[in-house]
């Protein structure tokens, strides 16, 4: 089926951007690729729900964002403590090769943001979405998006202002 091929080709073309978004959301690159893989698998399973003619990119960003939020919530339920970005140079849970990660200034400043501010900053300032598009991906009113974005942006400028 032609639209099936379009769907898969569209998905492949989106992978680099989805991966960039995942790296912004997750705390390290192994988690980011886990998130990206989970997004690809979920999208393939629910491809019947994608409406042809609507934007595939918004749909996939929404899937990734929802998986990330679900994971964060279940992590919080299991009582895992938040890694303080200033001390948190050791992340990753298995103590394996990725246990020690050198976080850059940007990574630390981003990790210090609440998830809702971080996703707003990423969608608008990194992924280049319009406010209305970003709000639709998140599923919140535009006003909520812009106030999260403003707070996130101010926190980042305060942290990075001296360093950049």
């Amino acid at each position, binding site marked *: *089926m*032609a639209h*099936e*091929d379009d769907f*898969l080709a569209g*998905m*492949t073309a989106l*992978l*680099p*951007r989805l*991966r*960039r978004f995942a*790296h*912004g959301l997750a705390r390290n690159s192994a988690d980011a*690729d886990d998130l*990206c*893989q989970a997004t*690809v*698998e979920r999208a*393939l399973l629910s491809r*019947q729900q994608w409406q042809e003619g609507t934007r595939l990119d918004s749909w996939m960003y929404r899937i990734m964002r929802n998986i990330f939020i679900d994971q964060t919530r279940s992590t919080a339920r299991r009582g895992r403590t938040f890694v303080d970005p200033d001390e948190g140079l050791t992340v990753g849970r298995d103590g394996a090769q990725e246990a020690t990660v050198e976080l*850059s200034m*940007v*990574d630390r400043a981003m990790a210090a943001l609440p998830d809702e501010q971080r996703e707003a*900053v*990423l969608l*608008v*300032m*990194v992924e280049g979405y*319009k*406010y209305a598009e970003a709000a639709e991906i998140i599923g919140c009113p535009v006003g909520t998006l*812009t*106030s999260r*974005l*403003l707070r996130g*942006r*101010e926190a*980042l*400028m305060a942290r*990075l*202002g001296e360093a*950049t």
Partner: protein
Amino acid sequence: MTISPEMLAAYADGELDELNAARVERALSDDPALAGQLEAMMSLKLTLAAHYDPILAQPLPDRLTAPITEAAKVVDLSAVRAARQRWFERPALRYSGGAIAAALALVLLVTLNRGGEASDMAGPQLAQALDSQASGVAGANGTKVLLSFRDQAGTLCRGYSAGAASGIACHEGKGWKIHVKGGAGASEQGDYRQAGSADAAIMAAAQDMAAGPALDADQEAQAIKAGWEP
């Protein structure tokens, strides 16, 4: 007028209409502090781009591309079902079914020889593909199996397209007996590629022969393992 932080941010993000953008620009030229804030915002954007954009150029890990490649290979049974449904239920076809069938027969030279006379057995290459290949996967010798199903008698049959020929073969005795012969698949029709028309004709013929829905991937894997015995 004073420019709120929201408005300056919206200006930096390109979200303002012309009128409001002009207002911000007037204020920027009068107010160095405001201009400094805008510069900080733009500089943050550049910092983020420098940090995240290199990810775009990195090679993609196999575990991200592999599921998509796999999905492209798997025969999409829902698509097969939809194709069948179209064949029977699309109003235009209902009225002109005879004409469409005649056109397909002309293009594809589909010849039904059910019943045994003048039927032939699949050659070794085709038989090997029918024995072992999953549907939807192009084999090494160019044979692609389209689907598997049971006919009214319970015999397992498979639709295929193999280079210049396509058809339906059923596993009888020790080999594959060809019941329906079709013409060239899309890839062999030269410049004018009528994608999938031969495949569609095979699907339609399979619908006529099948007792139920096509086998899914698991059922097909079992059939391959069991040597296609009914």
